[in-house]
């Protein structure tokens, strides 16, 4: 039992923050999309494609930051595809998202074989490295937890706050919420509903793209087949658990990140078979959905909106 005590360390919380980062990005993406009434189940595939795109850009240019930019742009492009299919052509949101997920799987594996001749993994590329915050890193308790991380972890904290501000303090946020909850009211108030929807679904893809960039450039510095491993789906649960609020989703993601980190620690100690521990985040998600969703009201009825 000494092992268990060792597991609960400050390093664990630092790991939790790291594991939570891609989930937070994608969950924030999910929030923007669902706040305008579009379910984005394609977050998983968007992250995967962006993770691949980021690595590819870094591979060819040697500049990981350019990789991040490309990942975000590709994420936005996939968001645009989802928006075109579901907003403009009022296609089924789940089906479109599923198509994006399967596309991501096939496309990234196909292209990594073309580029690196391997279905499994890319070559290693230059990653973003870690930043160590001056002063903060030396603080007790806080320092070991948040003092030294990938820059994308810090960006995630900023983006979470920004998402809150945008949604609840700006005119755009007011319009986003109006569009999701009562699109006709928004339209009659002179808001271009379709434009807001497009904007948010594209933004959703871009945020998921950041999550993908973190996985491949902020974490592993290479691309591996299916490296998102269901994080896009978990982020949807984090979004729901967080009641479609940025800070709520952040908290839920931290919880899932903690479970993930705990799982890896326990696994390395051999206390439990890894497969059993790996089910924990998924079981937790199901439990969360069963317990919370009944009371959490979605911000929209997700019906397609059509003028005339």
């Amino acid at each position, binding site marked *: 039992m000494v092992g268990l005590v060792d597991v609960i360390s400050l390093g664990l919380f630092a790991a939790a923050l790291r594991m939570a980062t891609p989930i937070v990005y994608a969950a924030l993406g999910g929030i923007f999309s669902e706040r305008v009434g579009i*379910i984005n*189940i394609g977050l998983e595939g968007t992250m995967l494609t962006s993770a691949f795109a980021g690595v590819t850009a870094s591979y060819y240019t040697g500049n990981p930051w350019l990789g991040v930019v490309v990942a975000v742009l590709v994420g936005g492009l996939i968001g645009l*595809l989802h928006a*075109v*299919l*579901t907003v403009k*052509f*009022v*296609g*089924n949101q*789940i*089906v*479109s998202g*599923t*198509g*994006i*997920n*399967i*596309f*991501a*799987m*096939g*496309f990234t*594996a*196909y*292209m990594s*074989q*073309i580029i690196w001749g391997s*279905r499994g993994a890319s070559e290693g590329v230059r990653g973003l490295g870690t930043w160590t915050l001056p002063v903060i890193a030396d603080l007790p308790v806080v320092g070991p937890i948040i003092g030294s991380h990938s820059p994308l972890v810090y960006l995630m904290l900023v983006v979470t706050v920004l998402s809150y501000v945008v949604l609840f303090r700006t005119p755009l946020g007011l319009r986003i919420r109006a569009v999701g909850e009562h699109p006709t009211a928004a339209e009659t108030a002179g808001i271009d509903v379709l434009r807001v929807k497009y904007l948010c679904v594209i933004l959703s893809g871009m945020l998921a793209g950041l999550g993908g960039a973190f996985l491949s450039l902020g974490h592993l510095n290479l691309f591996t087949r299916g490296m998102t491993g*269901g994080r896009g*789906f978990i982020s*949807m*649960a984090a979004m*729901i658990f967080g009641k479609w609020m940025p800070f709520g989703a952040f908290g839920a993601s931290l919880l899932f990140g903690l479970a993930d980190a705990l799982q890896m620690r326990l696994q390395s100690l051999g206390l439990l*078979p890894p*497969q*059993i521990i*790996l*089910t924990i985040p*998924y*079981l937790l*998600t*199901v439990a969360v*959905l*069963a*317990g919370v*969703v*009944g009371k959490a009201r979605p911000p929209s009825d997700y019906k397609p909106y059509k003028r005339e």
Partner: protein
Amino acid sequence: MKARALLSRVGSPETLRGILIQLIAILMAFAVGAVVLLVTGYNPIDAYAAMLRGAFGDVFRVGQTLTQATPIIFTALAFLFSFKSGLFNIGAEGQFLAGAFASALVGISFQNLPAPLHVLLALVAGAVAGGLWGLIPAVLKTRFGAHEVITTMMLSYVALYLTSYMVNYPFKAPGWVSQTVMIAESARLPRLLQGAQLSASIFIALALVALTRFILNRTILGYEIRATGLNPSAAENAGIDVKRGMILALVVSGAIAGLGGSGEIMGVHRRFIDGFSPGYGWDGLAVALVGGLSPVGALLAAILFGALRSGGMIMTRATGVPLDIVFLLQALVILFVAAPALIRAILKKGGLRW
């Protein structure tokens, strides 16, 4: 005129138009795939030709195509069945694995049973396990309002890891590979072609196509399930127990997927191997949609996807095109099928009216 009369016997104008749109979606996916091949330095004509040969070149290849199609006929029917009740069961993968493992367990647990009984027992176990795996999200949905899209998906991962645990620990066969020992001879489904993996599982699949069609279109149960899916409030008002219908539909859906898993274990692999399913559950969703959400359509679409797989392998061998182009093609078909309005808009742009 004759053609039109013949066509009208196949279905209403809406149905025919729907079929046409599905076909165009498939063609467009292949067109986009050709562009991808061109851009990445392959000759699409050669690739597609090799694929076609690989899929239907001879009896053996057809057998391979049908072998690939078999599991996704099951998962497609599973998706379709729950969809008709208004539920998006995208967790057929988990139910498939649950069924597969249950059948494997029955297969390795008895040695002296008469073959028909053993086969039947293993199939029932698969159906029950799949059904139970479908029951969980059904109950969570009807009792707590938990969205089935997320719960079925999450439970797929749970099934994946749990079965993986089973074949890595308690039921691991001696050796390096994470798998069970071979199931008893008496629990195996017969193979149909010399040297090929095509098994009697395809007959179960075909029977289920007919049965699903019959249940949905002819029976009281099917009527109530369709009413529930199309307008639950009106169904409830008509005295239909909507919750019961949803639970039943998801359980049956899970059982169908589970049987698919049984078929793979008992007919093809003869043991449960960790990670043996390359995502048949997701394919089922795609196949059901490409098949226009009708059982017969699902059968045809499954054969198409099976042909992509078996033909894809030959194509890879003959032309060096990475096999993953097949998944890309599938995804493109789904994306085009996702929005029929898109296809109509493209046709309109092209000057075609209907």
